[in-house]
């Protein structure tokens, strides 16, 4: 590959002309492709106060470009419902889709007793055969649901459609309804065929709609506790939710439900009893928060537990919402007690990492959130982008009215939600809300990744394999963060690569202890000497003159 842009000598990103980089990348593409990618590769605002530029996101993937995106089914079954342990999740389709989403996401779960239900280690599939495709798979699906019921007697069964199912027209929702009546347990289905959207994101939306319609609101039991919240968009990868729960518990805050790390069906069914919805991953779950606000009167706020600073900020924000000095004091106490351990490691690691550069291309929120952790150890994010986010995740929610709803998004049902006649209970009255706003408290706020990043950084949506390779060659970052498919190509180029979907079997990285884990992990990765061993001695100095050790 031609290297027309001058390769970066070392840690001098400011010398590189981003316009040149961008142009060089685009030049490689056929015209039509270049035109589309031009809108998805942008240079963050020119500097100081300037507005963030517009970026194209959540649009179709270009065939053949080598994307890292997955499908709607993966977003629905894999991401949102996968982490719930006590629902029997049946994948309706040929065997592969179910097989690949079996235990591969590292969302940890901890059943409270050895007898408690936990189906996460199981993979259920209708394993459709040719005759099911030809004659329809409803019969087999019905039988499968019945068999699952007879063997496991679960409290709920859900059904996930894969691509061929939609095409042959199996009516999974009717099957679910009939079986629900027949068996007397909750059974619901998702039309989350892979082709339904342009990425996993469509699947999140479909999953949210389904849980909201079929589960939330079924159980009015209130969990004890003065300050009760839901944690939305936290999937407990590597135990993140455990750490967050630990901290919240110390503060005296009750987590009614988590969507969906370490979650249960029961948690979902009484999620509507919480007094505040807090959103970690804005992309995957803001829909549920919006709907819960309309139907039950629960306000939502954006929070972030990735980064020690962010964690402290989040705790204060939650305390501020409840407007109780007792809680505020408690939160300060906890922050004060947790921070010394964090600071000790942070400062130690910072001394070794300061000034090094990182790139993050992953997910729909992590590429943003993890910048905070890098910042804490003095590392700079020189380029970032999401895999399946929408424009608001880049540019902030204030551009929501400007987003054009294209045919692919229209595909996904928007639920029409109304206040629940019995359960609607505004947690704050209009005056309170107004006062809080006046005091600078922000509900439903998310300013997106770009405004949080320095000017003159390259933002790339749905990065392709080619773009990844070029970026690395040009910028030589100290570390690159993405996911499993990118991992080894990047490492083969001599750049350490951290997975931010699965954490490479590491974690937790959320909360205070998580921050410590992450600092140490990054320290290990960017400062190991192993990368300097790539060249063998005879490659470093190939001359053949013999020298004898005792002569030297």
């Amino acid at each position: 590959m031609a290297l027309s842009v001058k390769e970066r000598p070392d840690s001098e990103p400011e010398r590189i002309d981003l316009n040149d980089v961008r142009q060089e990348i685009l030049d490689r593409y056929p015209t039509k492709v270049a035109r589309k990618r031009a809108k998805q590769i942008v240079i963050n605002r020119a500097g100081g106060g300037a507005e963030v530029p517009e970026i194209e996101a959540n649009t179709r993937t270009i065939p053949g470009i080598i994307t890292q995106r997955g499908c709607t089914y993966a977003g629905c079954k894999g991401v949102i419902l996968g982490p719930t342990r006590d629902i029997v999740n049946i994948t309706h389709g040929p065997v592969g889709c179910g097989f690949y989403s079996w235990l591969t996401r590292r969302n940890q779960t901890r059943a409270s007793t050895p007898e408690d239900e936990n189906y996460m280690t199981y993979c259920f599939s209708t394993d459709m055969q040719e005759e099911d495709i030809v004659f329809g798979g409803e019969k087999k699906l019905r039988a499968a649901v019945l068999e699952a019921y007879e063997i496991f007697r679960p409290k709920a069964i859900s059904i996930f459609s894969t691509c061929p199912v939609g095409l042959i027209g199996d009516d999974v929702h009717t099957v679910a309804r009939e079986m629900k009546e027949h068996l007397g347990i909750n059974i619901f289905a998702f039309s989350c065929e892979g082709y339904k959207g342009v990425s996993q994101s469509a699947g999140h939306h479909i999953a949210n709609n389904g849980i909201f319609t079929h589960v939330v609101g079924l159980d009015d039991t209130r969990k004890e506790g003065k300050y009760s919240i839901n944690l939305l968009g936290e999937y407990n990868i590597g135990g993140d939710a455990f750490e967050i729960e630990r901290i919240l518990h110390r503060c005296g805050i009750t987590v009614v439900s988590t969507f969906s790390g370490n979650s249960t069906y029961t948690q979902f069914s009484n999620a509507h009893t919480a007094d505040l919805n807090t959103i970690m991953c804005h992309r995957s779950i803001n829909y549920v928060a919006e709907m819960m606000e309309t139907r039950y009167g629960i306000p939502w706020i954006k929070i972030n537990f990735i980064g020690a600073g962010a964690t402290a900020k989040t705790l204060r924000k939650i305390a501020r919402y409840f407007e109780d000095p007792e809680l505020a004091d408690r939160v300060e106490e906890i922050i004060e007690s947790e921070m010394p351990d964090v600071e000790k490691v942070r400062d130690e690691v910072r001394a070794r990492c300061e000034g090094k550069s990182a790139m993050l291309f992953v997910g729909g929120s992590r590429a943003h959130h993890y910048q905070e952790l890098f910042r804490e150890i003095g590392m700079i994010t020189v380029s970032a982008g999401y895999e399946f986010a929408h424009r608001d995740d880049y540019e902030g929610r204030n551009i929501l009215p400007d987003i054009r709803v294209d045919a692919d998004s229209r595909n996904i049902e928007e639920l029409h939600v109304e206040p629940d006649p019995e359960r609607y209970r505004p947690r704050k009255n209009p005056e309170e809300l107004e006062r809080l706003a006046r005091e600078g408290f922000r509900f439903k706020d998310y300013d997106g990744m770009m405004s949080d990043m320095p000017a003159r950084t390259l933002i790339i949506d749905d990065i392709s394999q080619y773009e990844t390779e070029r970026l690395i060659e040009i910028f030589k970052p100290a570390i690159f963060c993405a996911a499993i498919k990118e991992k080894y190509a990047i490492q083969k180029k001599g750049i350490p690569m951290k997975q931010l979907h699965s954490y490479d079997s590491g974690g937790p990285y959320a909360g205070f202890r998580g921050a410590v884990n992450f600092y140490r992990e990054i320290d290990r990765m960017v400062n190991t000497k192993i990368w300097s061993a790539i060249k063998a001695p005879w490659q470093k100095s190939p001359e053949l003159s013999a020298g004898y050790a005792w002569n030297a």
Partner: protein
Amino acid sequence: MLLRHTSKEIVNRKALTINPAKTCQPIGAMYAALGIHGCLPHSHGSQGCCAYHRSTLTRHYKEPVMAATSSFTEGASVFGGQANLVQAIDNIFTIYDPEVIAVHTTCLSETIGDDIPQIAGKAQADGKIPAGKYVIHANTPSYTGSHVTGFASMTRAMVDYFARSSGQRSDRINIIPGYVEPSDMEEIRRIAVEMGVRIILFPDTSNVLNRPQTGRYEMFPKGGVTVEELMSTGDSRTTLALGRLASGSAARALDTRCKVPCEILDLPIGLNATDAFVDALRKAAAVSVPDTITTERGRMLDIITDMHQYFYGKKVALTGDPDQLVSLSEFLVSIDMQPIHIVTGTPGKKFETRIREITGEVPHRVNIGAPGDMFLFHQWIKNDPVDLLMGNSYVKYIARDEDIPFVRFGFPITDRIGHSYFPTVGYRGGMRLLEKILDALLDRKDRDSPEESFELVM
């Protein structure tokens, strides 16, 4: 308990698969295609399948696995994927410049009924396929077969698209290694080289999925069978196909198309199957077996005779793919172990008959599931316990719950390394397998022996 809902009581199931012992066709096709030099696999369907296949192969090999996708959306699903595939072909050649694009279908494009040769023809007519470059394809609908048949179909496509006879027979032997690891392919080649036999090995994923860390990434690394070699398979003397299911189809196609006679053998795993392979290769190439190989054989046998007491009578439950299970069961029986629960997700009557024959003399009831799943496998184990488990990484959940020694074997292995570097085929591979089995059994013995009978020498 990790699998706490698995009970002893076996309920007959007709519709629900629980914990599958197979996966879908395209991943096998993708793996096979990576064994062509300069080839980019392409998944014609929605992008999720491709993402899943790449991820799973990556977890298994810890190596880059590149493949492109047609990224169907709803429109393509209704109107067919022609536009997507033509655009993909154009983009792939422009951006990544492979020698070959190997297209496989998915359940979606198969259900729609996309005709790949016709679409490739359109791409050709539109000038999207540069001179000297190729687009080949295999149909891999996952509502039949399994990842193994997908591998077989793509391997066969290599013959259908490339093999030709020039009229001039060469002295080369084609070896189709089967759905085995890059290390195994390398070992098969090494044995042939050692014997002085000139071979064409296809597919060949060595140096593709077990490449060195060099500080440089090449999308198309050094390994893989070249198009030129594939073309000349039609001139070879003979084809040895290892593994009936994975390699049989390609071998027969070579016979029909180019009159290259073939012999279909078991995968050379274990003593007898390796003997059969070496012997067949010797005869096909008319060479004598060098002492070095005979020495390797002797060493393997030596381990068996030295350590026989630890193998003898031990019950084993194994799950995996048919070709592997046939050879492995035979191997275990040959060292006086007792394979008693054998499960594959890939359907096949012939397989069952074959395993019945192999296990005929096992003095115990033998359960065979073909197709079966790992839930049934686990239930069988609960009802009739074993001393050793063999299978892919998913088996470790059973191993831990039941506290049974476990040797990883098969696909996918996502939690250990070794399979891509160290073979299990051939005599050396057999030695490695024996070592692994012994380690598992003896570590257990060491863990469980009472202090007074804790042995220094074993």
